Each structure stands twice: as C-alpha cells, then as structure tokens.
C-alpha cells in the first residue's frame, strides 16, 4: 500500500535547500528560535524523553505486579513508581502533547500566517515547561514522591515523607507554560487568520485547539492556587485541608478536580481535532456535519467544567451534590457521541484508504468509545460505589487517555511527519507498529476492567493470588505495547535520513498546511495565501496534490 508520490516540487533531498530546518544549524539557532515550527520540534524531543521515562516506570511496576507478593520492588518504591508514571505522563506528556507539538507546528500554517501572535512568549513557554519538568524529575530522582499524581490531602500535606513540595512546584510551573501556549493560540486564532479564512472554513483541528485553549485558560489558574495551598499547609501548617488543623480534605478534591477533570478534555479534545483531519483526509470526504463537530468541541470544553464531583462520590461528598454531578456527567456523553457519529458518517461512501495515520484514527474510534462508555458506568453513583478506586477506573482512563489521547497524537505525528521533516515514514513498518500498539494496548488494559470488576483495588502493591492470571496478561500486553513504541521511535528516526523525500502534499489533503512546501519555509508561505474554500473541499481539485485523482481502485476499501 504505497503512495503515488510524485516529488515534482521537491526533488532535491531535504537539507540542501532553504526551509525552516536549514535556517541555522547551531545549537543557539534552536535554543533561541522564535519560529513556532522549531519550538514545536523542541517540544517534541522533550516530550518523547518524558514519555520514555514515564513508560519505563510503568514497565517496572507492571513487571513487579506479575506476582501477587510483588517480589521485584519494595512497597515504597512501588508507590514512588506509579506516582512518577502519573506525574510525568499527565503533566509532562499528555497535557502538552498535541497542543505544544502539533499545535505549535501547525496552527499558524493552518491559519495562513507567519507565526503565532506572541513568538517570544511561545519560546518562553518551552523554557518554563522544561524548568517545571526538570524540577519534577529532580524530585523523583532524589528521593521520589509517593502521594500519587493527585497529591490528595492530608497525606500530601502532613504525612508524606517524600519530595511532595518539589513535585508540586514542578507541576505549578509547568501550568504556566500551558497558559502561555493557550493564550497564544486564542489570540492567534482570533486575530491572525489569512484573508478569506472565516471561522467556518477553519480546520476542525483549529476548533479543537481553540476549545482546549479556553479550558487551559479557565482551569489552570485554579490548580495553580490549589498547589500553592498544599505548599502553605505543608510548610507553614495553615489549616486548609487537614482536619487536625481545622481544614477540610474534600475541599482539596473539589479544587483539584475543578482543573484536573477538565484537564482530561485538554488531553482528549486536541486528539479529536486530529482525528477529524485524519478521517476526512483518508476517506476523501468533507467531514459530516462540520458545524456540529466544531460546536461539540466547545460544548465538551464547557460541560467538562460541570462534572468534577464524580471523582468524589465515595469521598464523603454530599449525596445530593453527587446526584447533580452524576446527572451533569451524563451530558458530556452527548457532544462526544455527536463526534463519533459524525466521523462514522464521514466514512460512509467515502474512499477510505488504510494507511498508518488512518489506522490510528480507527484505533481512536474504537478505544475511545470503550473508554467513554465505561465512563458512564463510573458516573452512575450506584455502580461507582462498587468500581471506585479499582482497576476498572485505571482501565477506563487509560482507554480514554492512551486509546484516545495517545492514538490521536501518534496518528497526527504520522500524518504531519512528511510536513515536519520533509521525509515519508516507512509505511509497512508504520502499519506493523500501529497493529502491535493496538494489540498490546488492549492486552494491557482490557484485563484491568475485569480485575477492577472483581474487586482489585488500584495502587496496591500486593494482591490476592486469584488476580494473578489477569495481571500477567496485563504485563504481557504492556511489554508488547512498549515494543510497539520502540519500533515506531526507531523507524521515525531512521526516516529522518533515509525516508523517501515527501512532496508538498503526499496525502492529497486539502488543508492549507499542504499548500506550502515540505518542510515549510521559515515564513510558512512565501506569499500570504488567500483562502477560497474550507479545509475539507474534496470536491475542489487541489493544485498541490501528489496523489493522482481519482485514486487507484486497489486503494479503495
């Protein structure tokens, strides 16, 4: 299944001509760049490092969970490892993943502008992110943190003998980085669209970035203040959350989840944006119900703020408040279902081709649907009392965050890889890795639904021997999943030098980003583009497409 790439406009190998990657080769040309594309690449490299660290922690404690007695690690080490996995993956991979890498790289190109509104602020956001990340890593390496990524009080403020303050500090600082990125995106989308690019001609990826940015701007300050309160209680013993000092521990959970539940949508909305682009491009159809998909992103962003109490059904929250939160949580399923329906309808009678990015998009559809549906089990108060804090919850949110968030990120990374690097990734290997990742993921997390349903609590180091078979399956899956990620990392790095040179538009897609060269020049476009149609105008012939139209029969499914 190879592409009919006709590299007419880019026959010379990347590196021998002028584009953003060749515009300076020194380290300082990268570290002091204000080019949004280079900042995106800086983020990509740093996030991959964090992802590998967080993944390594997961592999270690999964190996430990092979035996009921937990023979590999001490209990304290186990606690520190799952905390490290959570903190690194949530704050330093998932939350920035798509916005900071793909968003930074693509948003200005999709808008037909030269850069984001505040390029220096953009660079600052990377430095702030790295400062926060390194501080958290420092906390983890020199002693570790054992409070779980949620920093629940009063354990985190009064009892934990680990580097809670440093880790909290890291998360606090990283929050400012996402605020800077979000502010940049909102202003850029409002003020810097190319002539003719009206709101309803924008790619749905941009709508998703807009919705995500609003969530970041409205939510992150709250978690920042909450983390400062941990600080104040732990260091100065002000009674805020600890009952012994006159505080209320559930207040922490309210404030924490007011941000951290919407943070789930910070992770998933960008992924939904990517999937909209992938499904449209690989089924050669305008996205079905464009406005519904666009508005449902905003609806998810808004409703996502009304549901946080479903994390506290059994934490002594009032049962009446629980009823309200349970009811409101069901509402999030509505815009989500609209999106799933519209993507499926886009496939209907489309000319679907199963290339690697599309496989990830399909992976997203299936896995995210399972993740979302099991979310309804958990938002129902009665079933949540049984399932709360069990592996069922762990499986649920991994289906949402990995099955949804990471699948979208990987799909997007493959889809825009030729645009970012000027090289194609090897299609055969990519399809193989996508299948390995899909299989490994399901083998890891599907048994965890069963584990949780049968009563295995999360975050436990030792367990009853009846759970062992499911734990062994999960660990086996995790190794396959890790193997899949390694294959992918390998061939992507390989393709930087040996990949086939990509033309401007290897997929024959219609978005504005495909109308400039690959990789784009530093200015993105040599002439400011004038937009005459929307990003999904597959009925309008493209001038840049490298794909022969109509597409050959064997590519149709």
């Amino acid at each position: 299944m190879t592409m009919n790439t006709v590299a007419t406009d880019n026959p010379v190998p990347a590196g021998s001509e002028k584009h953003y990657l060749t515009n300076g080769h020194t380290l300082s040309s990268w570290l002091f760049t204000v080019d949004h594309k280079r900042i995106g690449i800086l983020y990509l490299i740093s996030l991959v490092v964090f992802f590998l660290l967080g993944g390594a922690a997961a592999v270690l404690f999964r190996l430990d969970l092979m035996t009921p007695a937990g023979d590999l690690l001490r209990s304290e080490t186990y606690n520190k490892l799952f905390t490290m996995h959570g903190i690194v993956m949530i704050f330093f991979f998932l939350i920035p993943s798509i916005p900071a890498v793909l968003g930074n790289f693509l948003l200005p190109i999709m808008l037909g502008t030269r850069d984001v509104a505040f390029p220096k602020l953009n660079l600052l956001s990377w430095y702030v992110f790295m400062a926060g990340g390194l501080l958290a890593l420092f906390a983890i390496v020199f002693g570790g943190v054992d409070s779980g990524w949620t920093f629940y009080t009063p354990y985190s403020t009064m009892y934990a003998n680990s580097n809670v303050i440093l880790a909290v500090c890291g998360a606090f600082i990283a929050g400012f980085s996402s605020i800077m990125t979000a502010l940049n995106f909102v202003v850029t989308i409002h003020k810097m669209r190319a002539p003719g690019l009206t709101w309803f001609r924008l790619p749905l990826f941009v709508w998703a970035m807009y919705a995500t940015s609003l969530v970041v701007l409205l939510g992150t300050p709250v978690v920042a203040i909450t983390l400062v309160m941990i600080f104040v209680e732990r260091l100065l013993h002000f009674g805020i959350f600890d009952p012994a000092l006159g505080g209320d521990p559930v207040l922490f959970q309210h404030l924490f989840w007011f941000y951290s539940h919407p943070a789930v949508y910070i992770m998933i909305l960008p992924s939904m944006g990517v999937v909209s682009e992938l499904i449209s491009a690989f089924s050669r159809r305008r996205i079905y119900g464009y406005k519904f998909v666009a508005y449902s992103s905003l609806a998810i962003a808004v409703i996502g703020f009304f549901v946080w109490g479903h994390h506290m059904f059994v934490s002594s929250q009032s049962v009446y408040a629980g009823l309200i939160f349970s009811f409101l949580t069901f509402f999030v399923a509505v815009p989500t279902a609209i999106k799933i329906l519209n993507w499926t309808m886009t496939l209907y009678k489309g000319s679907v081709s199963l290339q690697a990015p599309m496989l990830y998009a399909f992976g997203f559809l299936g896995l995210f649907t399972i993740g979302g549906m099991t979310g309804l089990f958990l938002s129902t108060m009665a079933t949540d009392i049984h399932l709360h804090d069990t592996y069922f919850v762990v499986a649920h949110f991994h289906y949402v965050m990995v099955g949804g968030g990471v699948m979208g990120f990987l799909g997007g990374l493959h889809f825009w890889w030729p645009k970012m690097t000027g090289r194609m990734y090897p299609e055969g290997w990519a399809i193989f890795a996508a299948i390995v990742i899909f299989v490994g993921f399901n083998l890891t997390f599907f048994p965890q639904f069963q584990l949780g349903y049968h009563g295995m609590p999360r975050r436990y180091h030792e367990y009853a021997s009846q759970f062992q078979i499911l734990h062994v399956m999960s660990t086996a899956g995790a190794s396959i999943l890790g193997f899949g990620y390694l294959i992918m990392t390998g061939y992507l790095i390989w393709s930087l030098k040996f990949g086939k040179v990509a033309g401007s538009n290897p997929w024959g897609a219609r978005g504005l980003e495909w109308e400039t060269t690959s990789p784009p020049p530093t200015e993105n476009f040599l002439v400011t583009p004038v937009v005459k149609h929307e990003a999904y105008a597959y009925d309008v012939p493209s001038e840049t497409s490298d794909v022969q139209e109509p597409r050959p029969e064997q590519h149709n499914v």
Partner: protein
Amino acid sequence: MSHHVVGIKVYIAIFLSLMVLTGLTVWVAFINWGFMNDVVAMSIAVLKMTLVVLFFMHLKYQARLLWLIAGAGVIWLMIMFALTLSDYRSREWIESAFTRPVPWVASEEAATYQAEQMKAQESEDAGAHH
C-alpha cells in the same frame, strides 16, 4: 483598538481607594456581622478586584472581546463556587433525613399503610417459594 493613556491622577486615586478599602476590611473584621461576616468581607474584596481590573489592568478602555474573556473568568469562578457549595450546603440534609421524620411518612395512617404493604409483600414472597 486604540492605546489609551491613563493619567497618573487616576492611578493615585485608585491606589488610595484600595488602601481605604483595605483599612475597611480590617475594621469590619473586628465587628461580628453574624452570617453576614463572609458576605461583607467578600463584597469589599470584589469591589477592590473590580477597581484593579478596570483601571490598573485597563479593561475599562478595551474592546468588548476582552470584556467577554474577563467576564468568562468571573462566570467560571461562580461555577466553581456554586457547585462546590452544592456539596457543602447539602451535607447535613442526609443526616437530618435519618433523624427527623420525613413528611410523607410522618402521619400515622401512612405508617400503618406502609406496614400493611410490607406484610402483603412478605406473604406474596412466601407464596412464591411454595
């Protein structure tokens, strides 16, 4: 969006008002207003915040889009307070449901009726087993 220059006199006037309001906050803290304690303190704080946002942060002279964004922040704060208070204000309800008679089973007839219903249900269950 024109760049509005705010005179130094405005800044001084706002600064003095903020100082006066801070003094007021301290003064009212020594008076017991009963359940109004929080309301009074928060009202002064909101007034101070409004002055800072309007004049020091120049919102008064900005386009409506920025008003919308600042307003969204206020509305979101209200969402946080309202839903958090939905927990705190209703916590004692469940307790009182156990200690106080619930209106619709308070009357004697209702209690007798309920007892009869339960008896009927029990004998029905017993019959089903045979």
